[in-house]
């Protein structure tokens, strides 16, 4: 039910998640932020069980902070991805966390963004673009066609909206509102909270 989309652009990472929180057939909340900041330059986008997502993200955030306090240095996105994967992999056979994640981060040292696909089983893969949830079925082909590694921010945002529009239009489970965040050298910023209504007109209405 959760949709998460992310891709790496020229000097940034763009991530989007739907803002629905639900249980079974009921929508509990429609302004739920699934893109959790781990530190100033990394976002963990969570999908799956809400409780597990909260607990697991807390675990990662606190441990990343602890590392920073102890060692006076920030972890790279790759390190956080490996640490997160290890936590999921050891948990799966004991007390599994039902969360599927997209980890996006910008490393000042390499001056590059990176995106990792993490699974509840503990699979991990560095990807250039990808999605979690049902969105992946729709958005995968759009990103295959239109993504390239030199996407600047405006083109990237347009591509992201194209993806989200497709999710809204074709995913039977209604999800019209998406939150888009960007990570670049300045840190995490909320780009837009996008409200898509493809029934009225074929345009995207923007809302603050």
């Amino acid at each position: 039910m959760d949709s998460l989309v992310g891709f790496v652009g020229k000097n940034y990472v763009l991530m989007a998640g739907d803002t629905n929180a639900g249980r079974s057939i009921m929508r509990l909340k429609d302004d739920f932020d699934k893109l959790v900041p781990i530190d100033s330059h990394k976002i963990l986008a969570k999908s799956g069980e809400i409780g597990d997502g909260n607990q697991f993200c807390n675990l990662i955030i606190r441990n990343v902070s602890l590392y920073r306090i102890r060692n006076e240095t920030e972890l790279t996105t790759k390190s956080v991805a490996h640490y997160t994967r290890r936590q999921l992999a050891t948990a799966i056979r004991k007390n599994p966390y039902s969360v599927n994640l997209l980890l996006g981060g910008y490393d000042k040292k390499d001056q590059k963004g990176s995106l990792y696909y993490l699974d509840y089983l503990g699979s991990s893969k560095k990807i250039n673009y990808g999605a979690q949830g049902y969105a992946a079925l729709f958005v995968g082909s759009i990103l295959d066609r239109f993504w390239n590694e030199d996407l600047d921010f405006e083109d990237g945002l347009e591509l992201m909206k194209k993806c989200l529009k497709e999710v809204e239009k074709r995913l039977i489970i209604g999800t019209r509102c998406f939150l888009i965040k960007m990570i670049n050298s300045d840190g995490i910023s909320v780009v837009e909270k996008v409200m898509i209504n493809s029934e009225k007109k074929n345009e995207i209405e923007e809302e603050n």
Partner: protein
Amino acid sequence: MAGKNCVAIAGDTRFGVRNQTVALDSNRIFKINNRTLFGMTGLNTDILTLRESFKFQMNLYNLEEEREISPKTFAHNVAQTLYSKRFGPYFITPIIAGLEGEDYTPFLCATDLIGAMEFPKSFVVAGTGEESLMGVCETFYKENMEPDELFEVVSQCLLAAVDRDALSGWGSVVHVLTKDGITTKRLRTRKD
């Protein structure tokens, strides 16, 4: 597959979740040392966990023994690690290929998910397309192939087999190990 004082491992590079492809550049064949290559198929999380586990064990082995591990010993290590989880196994099928001893004798080993080893002399196969691979390797294998010919045979076998298997493909990588080192080549397969 084994040749004359050389071995080759080839694998596809698709990472997927059931019928959905997530990534096209996942590497499942790892170099243990200059004499040993280790490939795994199966559950991605277990592949990564075991990769890290064996890397750790091999680093420790190198420090303690002050030498490189031989392929045969490594194969036994893999089997023992897998059997230690006999009643909660790692869902992988490993393949070990290496050059054993002073003569660089080819060594091949395949195990199942709980560490039952076999040491064939010709070729080993694993994965979702293993039946296809078995058939085509049986047809094209011949003894004492030189590295170039071995590379050709292994590549064609892999390409043929992944074309038949829905869950394999989307790119492949072939490593040929000889006493002079490892040559790695990427092949284009059908993307479907």
